[in-house]
Every structure is written in C-alpha cells, then in structure tokens.
C-alpha cells in the first residue's frame, strides 16, 4: 500500500485489503471517496472537443513544456466523485443549520432559476450599457428595496461580501473625515462583542482599534463609550442586533453621542434579518451598514461563499460612497463610473472591485424579496425572533443562558458551558448534536461569553423541527451534565470522528503530493 507525504493511510480502497469494518471502507450508502489525484489521470477527459481549427501559433517560445499535473475524470466519474463528496456535507436542504451570527435559512430554488436566465447569467460586465438595461434595472430595484427597508439615503452595491462591505463603510467614514480635514481622527471604537471582521477591517483600512467593554447584560457599555469619545475618534463600529443576540436599546443615544463628538456610526448589519420590516436602521442614527444578502435575503452560501455585502449610507456619507453606481436618468439606466461621476459623486472614495459586484446574488436576492414583499419580510423578522425565543425558553433550565434574565433575545439565543462538569465543554455538546443529525450552533463566539453556544434557528424552521431539535439538544445537555463519557468522544456516526486540527496547523499539508511508496519509506 501507499502512504501520503504525512505518513497516514489514504482512504483509497486498496484491493484485497480490509479498511475498517468493511472491505472497501464504505458503509452502505456512506461511500468513501478518494481525491481526484488518486483516481484521475492526465490522459482522461470528460469533455469532447471538435477538431481544432487551423491557425498559426503566436506563442513564440512561451509554450508550456512541462506537465501541469491536472488529473481528469470522465463525465460519469466526475459526477459520481462530486455527488459522493456532497453526501459528506451537512446542508440546510438536509436539516436545521442553527449557526448563530451566520444565518442559514431555506434557499428557494426559484432564486437559482432566475439567476440562471441567460439575460443575467450570460452577460459580460463590460457589455455596452444599452444592451444590459435589464441588469441595471435589477440593481436599481434591489437598491430601492434596501434603501427603503433600512430608511437610509443611498446604497453601494459593489462590495463582494459582508467584511468587504465593512471596509466600504469605514472607507467612506475616512473619506468624509478627510474631506473635513479631520485626519487626526484615527481611532475606531469597536465593542468587544463585535464580529472579528470589524477590528480586522478597521485595521486594514488604516484605523487604530480600541475595544469598548460589554455590560453584564451583554450590551455596549454606554458610559465607557461616551467617556472615550473625543477629537481622535473617527467613529464606532457596532453590531445591532448584537452578537449576543440582543438589541442595543441605547442605539439612538450612542449614535447621537458619536455624532455630537464629530464621529460616524458604522453598524454591522449581519443580523438585519432580526429586524427587517420592523425597524429601520436609519431611524437609529446609523451612517453606514452592510447587508449580507446571503443571510437576510437567502442567497445560498455554497460552503462558505460567495457572499454579497451592499452598504447603505446616511445622507452625510452618501457623497463618499464608492463607484460604480447605477442611476436612472430619465428612462435610461446609466453606469456612473470614475469618468462620468458628476457633482453628486465627485467626492467618491473610488472603486473597490473590478466590476459591479455580485450580480448573481442580486438577482437571487431580488427574487427572494419580491416573493416575500414588505409584509412577508416583516413576518420574517417576527418568526425568526419568535423561534429563537422559543428555543431560549425551552433550554434555559438545562443550559446556562447568560442573558435570559435580560429579557427576550432577538433572532438568536445564547447559552454557555457554565455548570457543565469539569472536562466537558461546548465543543462536546456540539459534536453530540452531530450524532443526533443536527448541524451544531456557533461555538465559542461571541468571545464575551465563556464557552458560548449561539443558536439561530431562523424563520424557515417549523415548530415540529424546533421541537425535535430542542429534544435532541436537551438530551445531549443532560448527558453532558451527567458526565456521560460518550459525549466526550462524539461524533460517533459522522463520516469522520473528531479531526485533529492541531496537527493540521502544526504540519500544514495544503496541497496533494504524490504518495511515497510505503516500502520505500520503511
């Protein structure tokens, strides 16, 4: 047999050799799948081409002479490879995906069908503007919904993801301050409950980051915030509803204080789904907020991306928003780019991405928004909050819920590992849930809660599903409290048992290399 470069056995079925409790290592419908590098060959292809037309070569000495090393599979092999792999994934199509702060809800297939219409999918970003008016209209309609739902003044559509949207927002803040010759304002205040992207973004954009502590009730410490405001502060980056799943009741007061001190308010809008249709962030004094289309408006996240992060702006920051912009001039949609920027956009901070942003996500989000309408989106917020509170109240007697006494939560409920026996922790509960057929909640985030478990059911879960999840969650929690040793070794029924993440980080193996023959290695 062969071993790979790190010395452990590959799972490629080896003839005549037992692999676990079956000959192949497979378990009925649970099939092991080797890497394409182990099963493919550079001589195999799954694509047929016609004859190459005749023409001369103009590569002139730059022809590739070496082998790339790209294995191919025939079409049936390829379809089977990826189908087998797909079955080793948990997904929202399979069941509840209660990742707090991430928001994983039903992904309607109508969105997919609409995004694949050739008029959208087969459209080049530099196509002459007269031949893509419908695409601009999609952007314009979606922008209108986002501005109206948030009560803001304008929206920049091009940011590629939530964190890219954060960057867009803080760059607009920087540009606005620079326009007022307030270069000395270099500090962004970031509450410690913020997403890790917030401080990273602020630093990436050249700001200095200072933490603002949280109160015992899981909110921003208003007094500490006010005390820190001053002539060196550019503004605050805040998440509302925050990462403890709570609404910041002092939001308006925070905004007013920051504005009075000459700063701007950035809001991380990752949790907008909790308040959409019920609260307009513009009414809370926010100057910039990104909206994760893949969260609030259900564009599928595909195993970790793509995302899409349009940013809504207050009137104060609108002149600094990035280009390009789609605008309606008479009956015509135009693309406002650097060279066409009129007075309205003259102070724009510039371009932050090659083309127009995530058009494929815009069509999906608009489809979803039109399906729900204004009434449906309000119901989305209500049901997501109702579902989260239902879980909070159904679990608080078996798991520590640090903010349960502070009142209702928003769209996500937070628990902690406090009270669990020594040696049993949050990760064990998570892995126990895997065996029960559920994707675990978000673990160890936010950092302000020790051993945090952040549960976000979303509005697309039925009461029956929630009841089943609560039953499983209570059972795992009870076993953990009773010191059941099997909790420590879960999952037992997943495609893999617990994976050694320390080994992966200590000796990184990031690409596949030809295995060393075992006999040669011995």
């Amino acid at each position, binding site marked *: 047999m062969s071993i790979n470069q790190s010395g452990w056995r590959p799972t490629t079925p080896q003839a005549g050799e037992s692999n676990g409790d079956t000959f192949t290592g497979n378990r009925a419908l649970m099939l092991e799948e080797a890497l394409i590098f182990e099963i493919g060959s*550079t*001589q*195999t*292809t799954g694509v047929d081409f016609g004859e*190459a037309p005749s*023409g*001369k*070569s*103009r*590569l002139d000495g730059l022809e590739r002479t070496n*082998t*790339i090393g790209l294995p*191919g599979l025939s*079409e049936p092999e390829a379809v089977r490879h*990826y189908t087998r*792999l*797909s*079955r080793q994934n*948990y997904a929202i199509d399979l069941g509840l995906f209660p990742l707090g702060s991430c928001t994983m809800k039903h*992904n309607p297939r109508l969105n*997919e069908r*609409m995004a694949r219409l*050739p*008029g959208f999918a*087969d*459209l080049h970003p*530099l*196509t002459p503007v007269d031949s893509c008016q*419908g695409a601009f*209209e999609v952007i314009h309609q979606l922008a209108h919904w986002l501005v109206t*739902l948030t009560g803001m003044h304008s929206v920049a559509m091009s940011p590629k993801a939530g*964190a890219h949207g954060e960057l867009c927002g803080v760059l607009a803040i920087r540009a606005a301050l620079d326009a007022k010759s307030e270069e000395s304002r270099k500090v962004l205040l970031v509450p410690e409950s913020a997403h890790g992207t917030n401080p*990273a973004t602020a630093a990436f954009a050249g700001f200095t980051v200072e933490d603002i502590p949280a109160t015992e009730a899981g909110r921003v410490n208003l007094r500490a915030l006010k005390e820190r405001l001053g002539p060196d502060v550019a503004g605050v980056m805040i998440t509302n509803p925050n990462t403890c799943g709570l609404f910041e009741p002092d939001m308006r007061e925070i905004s007013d204080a920051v504005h009075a001190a000459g700063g701007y308010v950035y809001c991380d809008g990752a949790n907008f789904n909790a*308040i959409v249709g019920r*609260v*307009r962030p513009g*009414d809370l004094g926010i100057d910039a907020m990104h909206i994760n289309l893949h969260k609030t408006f259900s564009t*599928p996240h595909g*195993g*970790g991306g793509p995302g899409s992060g349009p940013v809504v702006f207050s009137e104060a920051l609108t002149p600094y928003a990035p280009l390009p912009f789609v605008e309606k001039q008479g009956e015509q949609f135009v693309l406002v780019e650097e*060279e066409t920027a009129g007075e309205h956009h003259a102070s724009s*901070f*510039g*371009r932050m*991405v*090659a*083309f127009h942003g*995530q058009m*494929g996500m815009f069509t999906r989000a608009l489809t979803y928004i039109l399906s729900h*309408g204004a009434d449906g989106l309000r119901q989305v917020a209500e049901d997501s909050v109702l579902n989260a509170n239902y879980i909070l109240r159904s679990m608080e007697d078996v798991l520590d819920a640090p903010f349960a006494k502070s009142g*209702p939560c928003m769209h996500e409920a937070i628990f902690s590992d406090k009270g669990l026996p020594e040696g049993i922790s949050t990760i064990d509960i998570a892995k126990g849930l*895997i065996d029960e057929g559920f994707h675990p909640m978000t673990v160890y985030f936010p950092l302000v809660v020790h051993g945090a478990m952040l549960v976000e059911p979303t509005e697309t879960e*039925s009461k029956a599903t929630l009841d089943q999840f609560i039953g499983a969650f209570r059972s795992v929690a009870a076993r953990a409290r009773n010191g059941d040793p099997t909790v420590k*070794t879960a999952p037992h029924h*997943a495609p*893999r048992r*617990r994976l*050694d993440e320390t080994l992966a*980080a200590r000796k990184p193996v990031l*690409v596949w290399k030809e295995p060393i023959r075992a006999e040669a290695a011995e």
Partner: protein
Amino acid sequence: MRYLPLTQTDREAMLGVIGAKSVDDLFVDVPEAARLDGPVHGLPNHASELAVERHMSALARKNLAAGDVPFFLGAGAYRHHVPASVDHIIQRGEFLTAYTPYQPEIAQGTLQVMFEFQTQVARLLGCDVANASMYDGSTACWEAIVMARRVTRRGKAILSGGLHPHYVSVANTMAKFTGDQLVTALPTLSPEPDTLDLINQIDDATSCVVVQYPDILGRIEDMSALAEACHAKKALLIAVVTEPVALGAIRSPGEMGADIVVGEGQSLGVGLQFGGPYVGLFACSEKLVRQMPGRLCGETVDAEGKRGFVLTLSTREQHIRREKATSNICTSSVLCALAMSAHMTLLGEMGLRQLAEINHVSASAAADRLAEVDGVELVTDRFFNEFTIRLSKEARPVVRALADKGILAGVSLGRLYPDAPELANGLIVAVTETTTEEDVETLASALEEALA
C-alpha cells in the same frame, strides 16, 4: 407565505411557552420611536412564484445575452462553454446550501473540494500552495500587494501598464487609505509590454512589481528577467492571471519566478454573470504561506486515523487575531471554486490543453482575418486568445454602433481608459472556443462598414 412554515396556531402556542402576550413583546428593547407599526410604506406585498418569475424574466429579456450574438468581449471576463454537469454539481443541495465548514466532521465534502481546488490552482499557476479562493481577481491583487508589504516591510509597489485598469483602480483606492505608494503607468499600443521600464524602476524601497499575464492588451512575455531583477533587490514579483485557460498553453508564472500569483478564475466553470460572483485565485511559494490571506484547508487525521480535512492556519485570520489578522476577509468564493474545480476535473490536463489550443488558433485566425479589414491594424503579435487592434477611428462609438446591430465587438480602450486619448482607437478582441468562423466574418464585415 410559502417560505414560512409557522401557522398561527404554532405562533400562539410558542408565545405561550415563552410567556409573551404577543410578538410585539419580543421587540421591547427597540425604542418606541424606532418601531414600525406595519409593513414599510411604499413597497409591494408578497407575490406568487409565477408572478415573480414573470417579473424577473421580463427584466432578463431586456439584456443582450452573449450567447445570442457574435460576441468578442474579454478584458478580465471570458465566455467559455461550461459542461452541463458543472452546473448540476454546484446545484447539489449539499454543496449549494451548506455554510462555511466550521464542523469538519460533517463538512468533508466541501473541505475535500477545497483541498483539491488548492492543489489544482497551485499546479496551474506553478506555485507551491494556493488558498481556497478569494472574492475575485481585483481584490486578490490588492491583497497580494498588502502581503508583499508585510513580507518585505516596504511600501512601494510598481504596477505594470499592462495590469487591468480596474485592478489598478482598486489598488489606487485602497492605497489612498493605507499609505502604500503605487507607481502606475498607462499601457502603450505596442507589441511588447513595458518590462524594461519596470526593471529600471525597481529600487530598495520596492515591495513588489505587479504584472498581468496575458496582459490587458492580450500580450504575453517571459517574465524571468523581471523576476530576477525583483529578487536582486529583494522585492517580490506578483503575477496576475485573468484568463487561466491560457495556462493550458503557455508557461506558468510560477515557473518564471513569480513569488505570488493571483488571478480571476471566472473563465473556468463560473460564467460571465455580469461581473460576479467570480473566484479569486491566490497562490504563492511555500515559505510565504503563513502570510497568505484567505481561507485554507489542510489535511489531517481523525480519531480513528482516517484521513480528513479541516480549515487550518486560522491563527492568521480575523476571528482569532482580530485587528492583527493578515486580512479582514471572512467569506471566500467556495461555490464558484467548486465550479472551477469541477470544470478542471472534467477537462483534465488533456482537455485543458485542447481547450487552450482551440482558443489560441481560433484567436490567431481571427486576428489574421480582422487585420485584412481596411482601417484595422493588429497591435499584438504574441498573444493567447485575446489581442488588440488599432482602428482608424475611435473605437468606443464603433463598439456602440455594432452593439446596435447585435454584434458585441470587444472592449474599447476608450471605455477602460477614458482619460487617455492616445488609446482611444484601441479595441480588445477576445476569441474563445465559443466563437464561430461566421461570428468572425460578421465582425469583419461590420468593421469594414463602420470604418469605411
């Protein structure tokens, strides 16, 4: 409402468990003044699937889809035939509707795909390692410049005139805020890129030189000498690839000494999509891996010794290092990376080489045909599937006039460089396996008429 499963009875029962009289009680923390008492004004209510489909289809019909007309646009986004099974694969619900693989035991599908993608990309670009994708080529390019600053502790980046102007624009935007010094130039309508100029500008303050390959005008050049010149001054060479199909035919940047290779992977598997979502490629040499931004998947073992995959080296990332992270990137483009990876797997080495060959000879034949037109001069003589021609008049209005006739003729340099009149007559023409000889003939005749 079809996406909301709760019934009114459910809602009442749940409120009972919670101990709230109405759902309004759950929003008590929202200040009275900020509460809306009903749906937001000015927006329509929910609509049936049929009604939404009609609305969206009507909008789609207002666009001129690339596949419906003779089509020659490139300049950073390319139209290739994507096998039907690629779209089938990415629409598998377990790929499409999964989140980031935070629980690796039940995310091995996505993780193995990421590992395979990293390996394919590293090999294609000629580097030791690659990450599991970035947002797109333009943001990957800026991240590479930042990474070069981190590695060399120098803040001056030299950008070639052959670099896509939008990529330059993104870098310029960011540099305004970060204080990086950028040296930029316009391309010249000449057969050779500006390599000598670049070499002459490298000094002890230079963190990196950024070149595109093939460049914005379609030109290709051996960058070995440039790499040597960079390394002699302890600067890094960053190569940008916006058409990865080219690497099936031409030498990889890694082979020629590039330290970081970034790119746009859209061309394989992803489709045009009016600019996004695309897939950013990022590869580098092994010794730089801990400075690399973005998500990485690594091989490991589980408690039974079976091979498995996990997200790794996350100590570089924002959720651990916060303001000290290598980048603020959290999301990547995994589904698009899957599409690209599946397309590469279907092609395999042999298929990719054939595809590249067809692209090249078709483009070469098209260049010859267009050069026969009065008023057309071929600028580039060494290229892959994209070349630049100089017209006897300004290209931008010509492109618009041809679009009115249902011919998407290419990307005019006037659109990309509105402030450079010396480039105004330039037209970038891309030819792929989807272009037919009739398409080329139609373009040639239309140009003949337009330039007469």
